[in-house]
């Protein structure tokens, strides 16, 4: 029998492989050459320093939203509200970036902290409603997403601009993007947020696996009855899990605000950064290292997809199919488990 840890690694890899395989079949079915398609995808993601820089840049917020969702999952909660928490985090970071004038060493942490706080507040509402009133967090977080979208749009028009659709630029002291780094990566939009995302991945891993808080959160996630029986406060842990999850998603938004863009614009629709975080967490088996790898893969796919139409004529929507198939195969991990078992049996 294979142990669970091994399966947790094999299943996502196998799912990715199957996703690409089905993507290839779809390309063939529509008369495209999958080898050309995938080599264009690869070129687009890793072909030059510029592309690598873009891939990393695209991965940064996904690492954080993926961590946010994985963190909630491990505590038995489904934080679909990462999307809204990204919005408020983005807004808070930009607000700090444009409003204050501070040295970078204070300004950047302050902006990130503000984003974390905004995300935490946004997640606190569904958390406290779940803990005290038993309202399902999925319902509340979905509603909170819309509130975040429209509230930030309104505030951008009123508070951060005079009726415009875009805020002013943040002060340089708040920016994670530096010309030196961008130049090194072929003038891409890469910024120092990748270090922030790695720091928080390490934090999530340590917090969940090594501290008494993480021990409680995971116990509540696995079995709230046993957690209550053993004297843990299930309610407090639900709120704590949501607040930390929201803070992580908020920081994900800050990465866009003070990293990629340096401003915030009004959105007509969701960014999908939060929603993609669900897929990232799922593919990463809800572990911090897994999330980092999965976010990088998704970043590569999304950036690489842009090169598919010009280089191979394959429409970039196909990448969305590949991503969807990967998620499908991860979700259908039971099926893959069976396949692997059968494979093993025949081997013996």
């Amino acid at each position, binding site marked *: 029998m294979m142990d669970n840890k091994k399966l947790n690694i094999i299943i996502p890899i196998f799912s990715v492989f199957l996703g690409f395989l089905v993507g290839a079949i779809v390309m063939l079915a529509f008369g495209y050459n999958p080898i050309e398609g995938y080599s264009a995808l690869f070129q687009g993601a890793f072909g030059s320093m510029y592309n690598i820089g873009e891939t990393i840049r695209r991965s940064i917020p996904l690492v954080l939203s993926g961590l946010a969702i994985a963190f909630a999952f491990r505590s038995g909660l489904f934080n679909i509200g990462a999307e809204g928490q990204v919005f408020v985090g983005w807004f808070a970071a930009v607000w700090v970036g444009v409003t204050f004038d501070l040295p970078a060493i204070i300004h950047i942490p302050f902006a990130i902290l503000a984003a974390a706080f905004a995300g935490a507040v946004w997640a606190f509402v569904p958390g406290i409603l779940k803990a005290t009133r038993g309202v399902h967090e999925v319902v509340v977080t979905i509603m909170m997403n819309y509130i975040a979208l429209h509230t930030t749009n309104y505030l951008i028009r009123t508070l951060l601009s005079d009726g415009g659709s875009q805020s002013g630029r943040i002060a340089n002291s708040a920016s994670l993007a530096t010309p030196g780094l961008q130049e090194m990566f072929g003038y891409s939009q890469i910024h120092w947020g990748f270090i922030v995302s790695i720091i928080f991945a390490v934090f999530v891993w340590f917090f969940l696996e090594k*501290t*008494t808080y993480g*021990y409680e959160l995971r*116990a509540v996630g696995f079995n709230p009855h046993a*957690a209550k*029986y*053993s*004297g*843990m406060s299930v309610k407090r842990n639900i709120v704590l899990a949501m607040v930390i999850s929201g803070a992580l998603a908020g920081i994900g938004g800050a990465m866009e605000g003070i990293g990629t863009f340096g401003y915030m614009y009004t959105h007509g629709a969701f960014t999908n950064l939060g929603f993609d975080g669900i897929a990232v967490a799922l593919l990463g088996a809800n572990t911090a290292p897994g999330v980092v790898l999965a976010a990088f893969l998704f970043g590569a796919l999304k950036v690489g997809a842009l090169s598919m139409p010009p280089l191979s004529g394959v429409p970039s929507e196909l990448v969305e199919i590949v991503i969807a198939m990967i998620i499908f195969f991860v979700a259908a991990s039971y099926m893959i488990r069976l396949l692997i078992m059968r494979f093993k049996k025949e081997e013996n």
Partner: protein
Amino acid sequence: MENYVIEMLNIRKEFPGIVANNNINLQVKNGEIHALLGENGAGKSTLMNVLFGLYQPEKGEIRVRGEKVKITDPNVANRLGIGMVHQHFMLVEPFTVAQNIILGSEPTKGGGFVDIKKAEKEIKELSDRYGLSVDPSAKVRDISVGMQQRAEILKTLYRGAEVIILDEPTAVLTPQEILELISIMRNLTKEGISIILITHKLKEIMEVCDRVTVIRKGEGIDTVNVKDTNVDDLAALMVGRQVNFKTEKTPANPKDPILTINNLQVKDSRQAMMVKGLNLDVRAGEIVGIAGIDGNGQSELIEAITGLRKSEAGEIKLNSKTITNLSPRKVTESGVAHIPQDRHKFGLVLDYPIAENIVLQTYYQKPFSKNKILSFKSIYKHAEKLIEDFDVRTPSPRTKARALSGGNQQKAIIAREVDRSPDLLIAAQPTRGLDVGAIETIHRRLIEERDKGRAVLLISFELDEVMNVSDRIAVMFDGQIVAEVKPEETNEQELGLLMAGSSKEKARQKAGDNK
């Protein structure tokens, strides 16, 4: 040649890594009650699932009425006249008995409309014929567990079963219901039905069965006539060594009261008052057993003591300090240990390693953590010691609790609870679903704790257990302690009547009459 209705010959069934059944023979005569005896995990259920078509055996053959058959799925088993009543009933609760029974083979009229009247009539006839007294038009959720079980039996009969497999049928029944079931089983065999009874309760076998096949660790050990054997021999066959049934213990030496409950009132989650002004004392150095039928407020009582449920009124004192409505953590810290009734729901985080389960209430204390950082080294060292001391059979302290057998899971819980040296140990159904060997160990542990001067409160639905282990029995009925008796001065009959709400005088009189 003998007239066998079912023959399973040299059955072998493997699962990845284990052989669940190895060369097992089971031959059931027409119209007999045949017991299949073995400890948990011995392979009884696997063998019956092979017979019922849920598993395919790797080797061996099955004959029904002398003819070799291949049972590929339960439908084939049904056609061959084999029916099974599972331990956990397979009933749709909001449906009536009749609707449940016809599910999957509904009689129709007028092109596709279910003819429920016809079905109810047929079911009533069947019920009367076998003396099952089941009302076909009653909703399943409104009838007693005993009647649900009879509905399950009726379901197999309705589908033409001539051989009925009963999987641990008495586990969920009250003593009176067990008597009813036994008479039903006798009625069935009179009508030519054969019964295979899966059980690990020896007394039932002695009382009702004709022959018994014993399996141990997947091997067929022997088939014996019940009239040629006795409880001790059967137990030895099942466990592989001599078993001590009468739990050895010296008389109790009760000291000061540890737990004092005054006029306690507790509501359940549906706001119904379940504990109605209960009074109880448990002293240091004694085991008080609470006897009662499930649902008379026992769960609510334990939950109120341990802080899992708020009480409405009354007082709970531990060592003369009030602990009423404290949080579970405060209750634990004040010296209460609790072996919960449902070990999977409350006792363990099944996906945590055994070691992490062992520190479930103490993880936040030194040396298991310092400054909120867990010390896995101390946790594992502690777990290894308890695993050794309490003989928890696990491949490693890193093994997930889920992977352990029920008996070993329970031993781990007991290790954790006892190790805290509590003043009061609450053991709720501590041996539910465990085999003879594990039961023996657990009873011995409880008595050891008593002898160390701790107060032990035992709640059990098994009368044998209450009578064997307790120094004093408190009978709980309708949210109150209705009688206190000494185990050596009472018997099952009297307790059974008390548990059903008779007064002590009446119960004593009735129980006396029947002797």
